[in-house]
């Protein structure tokens, strides 16, 4: 926690502004989770305003490199959501995605990137409430982590660690 | 030789001494070394459960911890009530929210321990086939009712042994001795449990029902694997008769006694004389009769 004290986060009723300018990118499959987010909207389930949704046809379309790209370049959080396993519109797209994202999630912290900035989950088109819960919890988590510095932009800045490997 | 920690529990030290004696004899006969848990204590049984879950788990857990320290990874208890407490202790130890309190109190974890009943030991480690081979004095011609009681196989996800509704292990063990075990519909019905003292009429009603069904099926004895069931059905049979205005006279031996008999161990050693209702009917040798009948038929 920084000196400013606990970071305030936009509460679920959306009354306070997201002054942090936190940005979360959500990759949502068209058939389930995008629909789930729509359902949450139709039901007026209030959510934090940090999420920006990219619609993809299926989580099977998710190349983990999209996540890498986002986090390296300073997007604060990445949320991937698709159909529940066995409910994939394309039968098996999310099975491929699950393995790839699971491996990627385990890999991220090795490179020094906080794995809590990336979450993947399954939300169906009817689970509006679940979507609200996912977005709220994930946004809160990202607010707790604060803005993502990404990796350093410039080269040649001093580094304080010795590698211990060489 | 298989080495198993032996948690006999308070009953087997008092009202069920014959269960203890016969258990030791049968295990010895099949090469199972029973390592009595050093300085064991009472598991707390139902009173502890109804007082505080941690009390129950800690009391039972202490025994598991000692067994583990004695180098055993399997703990056998002939008493299903004790078994329930032991398994409860294990669950508490595995529950992340309770683990610390448990370990603090008991002094160690009890991970990887296996807790089983005598019935499970006899059925899975010894097995009906081995018993059948070892029988010297077959109980052929006897009709013995298998009665499991409520806790031996229930609830299924805790007991992890046999079927919760229609268990068959005791049936198979009885059959291994040569006796007949009818399909007993009240195998797992409750006998009245701890209400022997406080609500005697419950036992009259519930155990009475069990005795009634057993006699309807032509049973000569009810075979049990629980000291509490045995007390209710045997020691209190007169009370039941008074309550139900019946005249049951069914001996209620332990499975260890029945197997012991078939192995040719002396009734005295097995403590058959300790049963309240005389089990003499079991001592009738009908194997010869059977053979004769078969020969005549053949």
């Amino acid at each position: 926690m920084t000196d400013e004290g606990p970071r305030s986060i936009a509460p679920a009723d959306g009354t306070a502004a997201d002054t942090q300018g936190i940005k979360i990118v959500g990759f949502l499959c068209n058939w389930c989770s995008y629909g789930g987010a729509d359902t949450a909207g139709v039901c007026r389930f209030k959510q934090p305003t940090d999420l920006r949704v990219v619609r993809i046809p299926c989580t099977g379309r998710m190349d983990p490199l999209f996540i890498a790209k986002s986090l390296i370049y300073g997007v604060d959080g990445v949320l991937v959501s698709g159909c529940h396993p066995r409910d994939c519109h394309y039968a098996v797209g999310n099975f491929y995605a699950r393995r790839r994202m699971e491996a990627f999630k385990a890999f991220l912290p090795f490179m020094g990137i906080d794995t809590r900035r990336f979450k993947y989950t399954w939300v169906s088109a009817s689970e509006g409430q679940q979507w609200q819960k996912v977005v709220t919890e994930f946004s809160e988590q990202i607010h707790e982590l604060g803005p993502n510095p990404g990796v350093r932009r410039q080269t040649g800045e001093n580094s304080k660690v010795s590698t211990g490997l060489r | 030789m298989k080495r198993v920690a032996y948690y006999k529990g308070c009953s087997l030290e008092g009202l069920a001494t014959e269960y203890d004696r016969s258990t030791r004899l049968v295990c010895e006969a099949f090469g199972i070394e029973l390592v009595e848990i050093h300085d064991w204590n009472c598991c707390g049984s139902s009173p502890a459960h109804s007082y505080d879950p941690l009390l129950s788990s800690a009391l039972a857990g202490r025994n598991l911890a000692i067994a583990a320290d004695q180098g055993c990874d399997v703990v056998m208890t002939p008493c299903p009530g004790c078994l329930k407490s032991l398994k409860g202790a294990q669950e508490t130890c595995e529950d992340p929210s309770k683990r610390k309190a448990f370990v603090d109190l008991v002094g160690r974890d009890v991970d990887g321990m296996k807790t089983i009943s005598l019935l499970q030991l006899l059925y899975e480690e010894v097995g009906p086939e081995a018993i059948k081979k070892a029988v010297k004095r077959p109980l052929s011609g006897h009709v013995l009712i298998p009665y499991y009681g409520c806790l031996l196989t229930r609830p299924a996800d805790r007991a992890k042994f046999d079927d919760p509704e229609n268990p068959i292990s005791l049936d198979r063990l009885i059959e291994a001795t040569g006796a007949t075990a009818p399909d007993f519909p009240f195998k797992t019905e409750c006998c009245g449990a701890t209400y022997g003292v406080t609500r005697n009429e419950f036992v009259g009603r519930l155990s009475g029902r069990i005795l009634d069904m057993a006699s309807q099926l032509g049973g000569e004895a009810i075979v049990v694997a629980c000291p509490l069931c045995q007390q209710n059905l045997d020691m209190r049979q007169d009370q039941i008769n008074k309550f139900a205005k019946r005249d049951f006279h069914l001996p209620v031996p332990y499975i260890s006694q029945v197997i012991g008999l078939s192995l040719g161990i002396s009734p005295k050693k097995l403590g058959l004389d300790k049963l309240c209702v005389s089990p003499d009917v079991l001592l009738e040798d009908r194997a010869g009769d059977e053979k004769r009948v078969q020969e005549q038929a053949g």
Partner: protein
Amino acid sequence: MRIGVFVCSCGTNIAGTVDTKRVASEALSFADVVYATNYMYTCSEPGQQEIQKAITEHGLQGVVVAACSPRMHEPTFRRAVEKAGLNRYMFEMANIREHVSWIGTDKEANTRKALDLVRMAVAKLRFNAPLFSSKAPVNKRLLVIGGGVAGIQAALDCAEGGMDVVMVERKQYIGGKMAKLDKTFPTIDCSSCILGPKMVDVSQNEKITLYAASQIESINGYIGNFTVDIRKKATYVNWDACTGCGACVEKCPSKKAEDYFNEGLGQARAINIPFPQAIPKKAAIDAQFCRQLNGKKCGVCAKICPVKAIDFEMKDTIVTEKVGAIIVATGYDLFDYSVYGEYGGGRYPDVISGIQYERILSASGPFGGHIRRPSDGREPKDIVFISCVGSRDASVGRPYCSGICCMYIAKQAILTKDHMPESNSYVFYMDIRSPGKNYDEFVRRAQEEYGVQYIRGRVGKIYQRGDRMVVQGADTLLGVQVEVEADLVVLATGVESSSGAGELAEKLRISYDQYGFYMESHPKLRPVETNTAGVYLAGACQGPKDIPSSVAQGSAAASKVQSLFAHDTIETNPQVALVNERNCIACGKCIQVCPFGAIQWKELRGGIKKAEVLQTVCQGCGVCNATCPPKAIQLQHATDNQILAEVNELCA
């Protein structure tokens, strides 16, 4: 690219919590945006005209509408821009209603979020390209998998419409579960009297080719052009010759074969015709029980057969059929009640399932329509029916309602009274589910006119006492435990998915739920379609259903097929994967991962191999795109560049 942005206020739906005017004005500063405006209802007729006018007046090459969810109005706006001469894919939507205005009340934050979404949509649009559908011919033949009442209805409807139909049935007869029923609710009409003629129609209709005792081996291809391999199982009887005279059945010395048709009540011969009205009426040998086939000397049937149809050497054969559409009507199975240990777990002969009781009631059943107990053949007096056996029971993995049991119990209780006026029927139920036409009246009649005793509660245990069963249950309305002595107990076993449903789904590439029921494309709006184009669902394979619903869905699926077959060609969806051959390194990984078999090798001159997407087969999931190392295969309309463009807008 000249881009126009149209921000919808949606009355106050959006404008209430998003400053739509500001969104429009700031959007003007985005790259390539030459026009931006804000409108009250963009989806309305004048709203659409506004877009079309702007396209013409400002020479727009791409349009972004910031409004509701694209799942709502994307098709609407695509049509609108198309009418104004743009390619329909030169359009993007920013969802600022469901994803913004409706879920947050902070206008400032909402407005900034809306701006981001518009910025992302514009960024993506800059990488959009016109896409065009192609056309593929339609083979106007239909495959119906499953010959129960739903499949029969679908097949007859399509044959009536002049289409060729291929029907494949796993069993040796068609008619499915309905053929086993005695009567049907709520009209008590005779099941075989209403189904029989339809079965005969199937066998006599020249348009219909029936493969009974056959299974789907494999399915390839795509809507309009499927290739299906069908495994015809060895029946050891040449059906072309067999006349169904039944002489072989009469003389077969192996009398202990399992009587599947009678649900294990009674026994059948090793060579058998399951029931007199069977279609096709052909004999088949159960290899498990045939003496000859088990190395013993027999061959009686071969000697007796007047047309020499018996062939002990018969092997399975594979036939290939080409079709343009597939209706799946594989029906259901009934829950195996032996997992209920408390109900005897199958140990008690007088505790039977509803379908077994149906066979007992049936005049063609094992007891000739007289109600008898399986154990001793005695006529029962007290009969207990227990509902929800394998339904609404999470502990056995069946939390759903089977929907038909309440009704069939009421029917069976009524029939019991008809057969034996002196008998007493008791029904244990949790709730009565009778929402069909005349259904509830029917259940009421069972109670009011037939004196069936309904007891609201589940049964805890059934056990034998003497030669009767004791049913120990609850009457929750009174709050008491009840005990009923019964001569016969009928368990209303619930509906579960057909065995092998999952395997067939894999072959068809359609989805199925956790219970094995096939998933419809949309529960309300596309109830008979699947997510694989050209594959439709009928009957209980999609979920528990009664006969009227199954028949209705059979007809519905048939009408879908007929509207497909009304065209000679079909338009394909252009949002599919496309290979950039220059970048393809021929590693074959896309072919390996494609869930639809939509990618194949293509040989260029000089023997160089490249991947090639079959546009009609590709469903557009993008797994190939995510997998391809040099990204040579790109999912059109969701390319790497398009997604990266959106992400880049957030990587400020």
